[in-house]
């Protein structure tokens, strides 16, 4: 396990987060901003940039955890088509609000990361697809892009080099599904936000049928640091397989919710109790979702076990996933059935309606859970919801179906008695309330 000062987390992506006025390009440049991008474009070859990012072990921070450098290297070199870099700022996962802070307080580190990424893959056009509800953040990013154009950071011959890069901001219209990369591309093309079938993958045929890379905000914001201090500098943090730091947005019934940047591989238990202050007075944790609502939830015992470290592998060991790093904490005052009903209502509402299992299954799950929660469940319906979830899991076009199924499977597995109590007593467990 990584040794780490739990009270004062170190910062890489969040290095500018507490400095006021970093959304203005002048202040950002005073702190040495855009120097890395200029050096990279002037002195590095694109392949070396990809190689360096590969060596750093940076993995996609949006949820899937795919190696960023490897993803970049999938762009076909000899394609005559234009290439695109898209930043996925459609952060709509319940419980996740890490990218918002970057967009709001440090948009230029994202733009710098995008310049480097675009140079590496050979793209002259970039898009930031921002969530529709992020009105304030969209204004901030828009102002930052305008300022960057005035400063010569974007546009023709950026940063006094011979590289052109145009960056556009595109606001979504509030659909959760558009956070999935192919649905995002469809939406960006002006169509209905529906995920595409893979293959072909976006790196071969994406936006406008051209090679496209879609990266998360946090991933791109970490790129300037990697190029500045080298892959080894980034690998100082984190573990062998999960390098670097990760932003965790902690919410729910905990003393100090908020967004924390921590190196990967630290103890989850100590993070919850020391960094985030532990449970509220007189309560204790009951269940924790460690990676945004789309990952299986785990019990307190699993979360506090020795092997549960805050990295991709550690969370996998206890049967869940790192996901997007949105930690949702339920304490013993929460009714799990109610919590699950809320989650499944979200997925039933946000299912795009394209493929069968997700379209029909999410709605069915919600209806059954709604009845169980309100005391109208049948004894065989606990197995029924698990069966529906199993039938959705892995059989859909995009991961939304899996995301709707996993919380149900894990909640029934870990808290079956609570479901049974609802069915036999027609009410919530004593001491739990509806939030």
């Amino acid at each position: 396990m990584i040794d780490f000062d739990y009270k004062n987390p170190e910062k890489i992506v969040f290095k500018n987060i507490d400095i006021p006025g970093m959304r203005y390009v002048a202040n950002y440049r005073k702190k040495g901003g855009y120097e890395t991008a200029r050096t990279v474009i002037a002195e590095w070859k694109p392949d070396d940039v990809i190689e360096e990012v590969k060596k750093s072990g940076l993995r996609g921070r949006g949820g899937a955890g795919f190696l960023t450098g490897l993803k970049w290297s999938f762009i076909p070199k000899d394609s005559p088509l234009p290439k695109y870099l898209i930043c996925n700022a459609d952060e709509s996962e319940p419980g996740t609000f890490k990218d918002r802070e970057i967009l709001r307080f440090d948009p230029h580190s994202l733009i710098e990361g995008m310049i480097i990424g675009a140079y590496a893959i050979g793209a002259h056009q970039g898009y930031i697809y921002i969530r529709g509800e992020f009105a304030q953040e969209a204004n901030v990013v828009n102002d930052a892009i305008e300022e960057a154009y005035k400063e010569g950071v974007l546009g023709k011959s950026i940063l006094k080099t011979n590289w052109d890069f145009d960056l556009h901001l595109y606001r979504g219209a509030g659909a959760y599904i558009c956070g999935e990369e192919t649905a995002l591309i469809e939406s960006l093309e002006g169509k209905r936000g529906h995920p595409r079938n893979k293959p072909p993958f976006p790196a071969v045929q994406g936006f406008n049928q051209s090679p496209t890379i879609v990266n998360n905000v946090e991933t791109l914001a970490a790129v300037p640091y990697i190029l500045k201090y080298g892959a080894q500098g980034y690998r100082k943090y984190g573990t062998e397989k999960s390098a670097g730091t990760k932003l965790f947005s902690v919410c729910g019934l905990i003393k100090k919710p908020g967004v924390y940047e921590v190196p990967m591989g630290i103890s989850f238990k100590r993070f919850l109790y020391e960094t985030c202050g532990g449970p509220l007075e007189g309560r204790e944790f009951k269940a924790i979702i460690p990676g945004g609502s789309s990952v299986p939830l785990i019990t307190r015992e699993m979360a506090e076990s020795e092997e549960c470290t805050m990295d991709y592998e550690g969370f996998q060991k206890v049967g869940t996933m790192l996901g997007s790093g949105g930690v949702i904490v339920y304490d013993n005052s929460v009714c799990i059935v109610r919590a699950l009903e809320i989650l499944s209502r979200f997925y039933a509402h946000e299912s795009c309606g394209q493929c069968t299992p997700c379209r029909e299954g999410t709605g069915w799950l919600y209806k059954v859970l709604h009845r169980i929660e309100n005391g109208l469940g049948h004894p065989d319906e606990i197995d029924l919801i698990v069966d529906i979830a199993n039938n959705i899991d892995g059989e859909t076009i995009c991961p939304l179906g899996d995301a709707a199924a996993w919380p149900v499977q894990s909640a029934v597995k870990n808290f079956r008695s609570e479901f049974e109590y609802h069915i036999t007593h027609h009410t919530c467990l004593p001491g739990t309330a509806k939030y």
Partner: protein
Amino acid sequence: MAKVVIDGQQVEVREGITILWAARQIGKYIPTFCYYPWFPPQGNCRICQVEVKGIPKLQIACNIPVRDGMEIFTENERVIRARRAVMEFLLIHHPLDCPICDQSSECDLQDLAFRHGMAVGRYREAKRTFPKVDYGDKIAREMNRCIHCRRCIKLAEDYMGVEVIGALERGDKTEIGAYIDAIIDSEWSGNVIDICPVGALTDKKFRFSSRVWDLDQVNAYRPDCPHQCKVRLGIHRGKIQRVTARIYNGVMESMICDDCRFNHYNLEDWVLEV
């Protein structure tokens, strides 16, 4: 050429064709709803899922190209389970009105329900219903029967050349409807009836006039038609009950125009290819 193994049977197929076609070449049956050879695969219905050795998730046969050395299972336990699951999902909202449905006996969903459907429904909730929308005097839309395969949308966009129908709403409230004025406005609009695998889009003039299995199906053409549509007449008791495109193995031979389909019910107008 690629050598693949389908259900233990070695077969040599052209490189790049999909698993579905490779399986069809050797006579293996893989069910499909949303797949139509006229369009690129959409992957909506998920009924054609097969297991490919080495890939943890089930893959849709209509979209995955074969590669050399692939080992494919089209009827093992896992695949059948997935098919049953998809069928159950499709049937939870489907009304039990086959006895009064015009599509009955030509319905893909009906055929597959016999094959993979469950005898008992586990769905205790109220069925989803949609308000009735009048689509003029040609096409009857019964949205409650729709399985959301979106073939009609694809046909309208790619072949009829008009973007008039599409998906409205989302999730399980998704409705396939016309965007404006509830009219599918095209000379070829009637073809959505033939492409619909279920009874969601049916011929309003044929409605309730005869059962499909009573019809004598005769190929014909109309010398006056400027498109020279190749049609199939459904004749019962000496009268033309309906006009459809010629459908072979579930696929239309060609589209037919609305004039042929809806306006000519006299046998004298047609030249029968008997």
